[in-house]
């Protein structure tokens, strides 16, 4: 199997501080790949490199062979990389449909003028996009909230809408930044179910950053463990769980 995402020897420095140091890993098509690590280990820095917010000084990041480093975030999004945010990237005063439609914006072809006149192509296009949005609403079971402002909805639902907004972009690669942070057990279980369903139905590749170890061990195909910007281990959940360096980093004691 060829890799979807190839990260090679990436080093990212802020002044003299190395946020990422010589990080390499691959993710495969249809794989759910998780990145774990303590606070400040560099998890979010990797995400920001993957979607073009940061440009690492050294290394290469390729998506299906295409180099991402040096590209702007919008260009990378257009290549099919979508992400969700830890602290939600939603418009709280807009309703659910409008938030999801914004996720479709990148795929709209008609220009500002045609959209303003609202004839022919613009209208037809809107219908197509609305239908896509409805498919996501169906998948994530958001029917009851369509016309409610996002800010009025419970946090667990907002996180689900955030996932929906990213799915609306029809990405090849979805980056999930702590999708279950701050959720209670029931909300977490729901969210995990939606993530797995989205993956199965849309045949998505995902990279997940998450603190909740139970969730990660449950759903990830492979895991990358980071500490202070360096790779501790890459492997299946079982391999990573039994890795000496990971245990040390997490439990803070030396096992020897």
């Amino acid at each position, binding site marked *: 199997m060829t890799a979807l995402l190839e990260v090679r020897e990436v080093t990212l420095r802020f002044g003299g501080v190395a946020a990422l140091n010589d990080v390499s890993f691959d993710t495969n098509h249809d794989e759910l790949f998780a990145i774990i690590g303590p606070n400040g280990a560099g998890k979010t820095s990797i995400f920001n490199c993957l979607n073009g917010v940061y440009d690492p000084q050294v290394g290469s990041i390729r998506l299906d062979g295409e180099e991402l480093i040096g590209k702007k975030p919008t260009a990378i999004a257009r290549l099919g990389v979508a992400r969700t945010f830890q602290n939600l990237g939603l418009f709280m005063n807009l309703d659910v449909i409008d938030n999801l439609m914004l996720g479709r914006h990148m795929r709209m072809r008609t220009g500002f003028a045609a959209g303003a006149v609202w004839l022919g192509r613009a209208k037809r296009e809107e219908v197509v996009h*609305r*239908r896509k949005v*409805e*498919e996501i*609403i*169906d998948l994530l*079971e958001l*029917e*009851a909230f*369509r016309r409610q402002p996002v800010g009025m909805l419970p946090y667990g639902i907002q996180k689900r809408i955030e996932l929906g907004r990213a799915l609306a972009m029809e990405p090849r690669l979805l980056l999930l930044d702590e999708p279950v942070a701050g959720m209670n057990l029931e909300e977490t279980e729901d969210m995990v179910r939606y993530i797995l*369903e989205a993956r*199965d*139905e849309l045949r998505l590749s995902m990279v997940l950053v998450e603190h909740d170890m139970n969730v990660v061990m449950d759903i990830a195909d492979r895991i990358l463990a980071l500490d202070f910007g360096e790779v501790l281990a890459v492997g299946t959940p079982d391999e990573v769980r039994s890795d000496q360096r990971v245990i040390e980093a997490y439990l803070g004691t030396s096992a020897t």
Partner: protein
Amino acid sequence: MTTTLHPRPEADAAPDGPAHSLPELLVRHARSRPKAAAMRRKRYGVWEEYTFAEYLEQSARAGLALAELGVRPGDTVAVHSENRPEWVWADLGIQGIGAITVGIYPTSPAAEVEYILGHSESRVLIAEDEEQLDKALEVRDRLPNLEWIVVIDPRGVKVLDDPRIITWDQFLQAAADRDVSEWEAGLADITPDRCALIVYTSGTTGPPKGAMISHANTLAAAEIFQAAFHAGPDDEVLSYLPLCHIAERLGTVINGLWNGYVVNFGEGVETFASDLREVQPTIFLGVPRIWEKMLATVEIRMNDASRLKRANYRFWTRIGRRLAQQRMQGTLGLGGRMLAALGWVMLFRSLREKLGLARVHTAISGAAPIAPQVLEFFWALGVPVREGYGQTENTAVCTYTPVDDVKIGMVGKALPGVDVRIAEDGEILTRSAGVFMGYLKNEAATEDTIDPDGWLHTGDVGELDDDGFLKITDRKKDIIITSGGKNISPSEIENLLKVSPYVREAVVVGEKRKYLTALVGIELDTVGDWATRRNLAFTTYEDLSRKPEVRELVSEVVAGVNEQLARVEQIKDFRLIPKELDHEEGELTATQKVKRRAINEEFAALIDDMYGG
């Protein structure tokens, strides 16, 4: 009292002479008005329409496909799904080939699914989706009769390589080269007195019993209700109560096919309120729980409304109540009508539109007793909710409240062609063409229920007044006899408690005890809202139930109810149930009725505590 039995619908009701089955009615509609709308379903946010021609085509295809799978007349086929067109198409398809439809509640856990599939010896199961399929797969090894499983929505299903599990589309393909007319031709072989469907009654005690309903029963019920509801082809209903329950089966399938009206399928339980608002049905059947919930919603909204709006609401509902009294007696004069018209402009229209009741001309409450105060509220809005009384065993045909002769607290008069009388022990007996064939594989229960003269023993205790109005006291086995020897009807007291928007469930206890007590379950939405307004922090239902402030709130409700009761009926103490009751955990029946025995056992400690340990 007359004893005429209606053998089957009159010839004048159906132009081609009496029909013998529901599938035959479908064929007639598809012939006479093929392009008329028969169903709508909301999918991906859009209402899709199906005509009668499509209804027939789909039903016939389903029937022919079942025949291809080896289903023969007299065989049973189970449907385990939320309401959706495929449910109805399957039902008609099954009945059309002389087979029998068995419905399973979508909320039924795997053990109940096993019991029903096993007891009915179903050969094919039509399961809605992954969730229902999983339940069947869990118990499939123990079901030797089950040969095929058809999955309507195969998304997420991982076992499609099993040759005995097929999707709905593959299923219809099985009969792709057969003609719809073959199915139509087969309808002539249907014998009206044979079984058409089995409805498993989710008894509050013991395993469910399979009530056998004949083709003739379905048509008799359709004819009788047509006269009572004044329904016609222009009517619209929303199909939302479980279709395996006789009430929704009547509204969606039986009455739907008799009258040829439009049946709407919304997106599901969670969107019920918005579905209702979009459909604005003209005929609406609600169980008490639905009416209570609507009332609670309005009251919460009014708490949030501006002072002016609140005053307007109070003023017009007070006027509405007065007008309702006149309407119930059929004495609403010109002045009253003008006042009602003004009220329509000022309040009733907007409120009814928001509830989805703006176009309702026939509103029915049934399936369980309802508190008078709840009914009065809807009458005040100009929605004449009329109580009906029936049960699975008489195809829901028994009594119904006449349009302009309403006695609140009573369930109306016998429908045309129905006899009702009270036995010596107070039990309500009824006889009509709706009385079922008996329980499947349970002769003893059948003999206990239908006596040799054809009277159905309903298991309810009640009274008939001089005008022929029936009042239900309670289920015979629920009557509480206190240690003082008083006979008490618990459901009457429970309903008074449930009038409060804060009370979701109430179970009165007192059998062989000195006094009555109650277990009360709070309504999470309203009490949660109440707590939030008081900055009372809470996490879960249980946490909220344990707050002393909440206990205080409920004790005010109980005190208010006690004022309306005689001394022996008063609730001397109560405890809050610390969890939400659930069908899957065996506390509620599939129709959300409380299983008293289960509650009494589960919360025995709370009960003992109220009687001094």
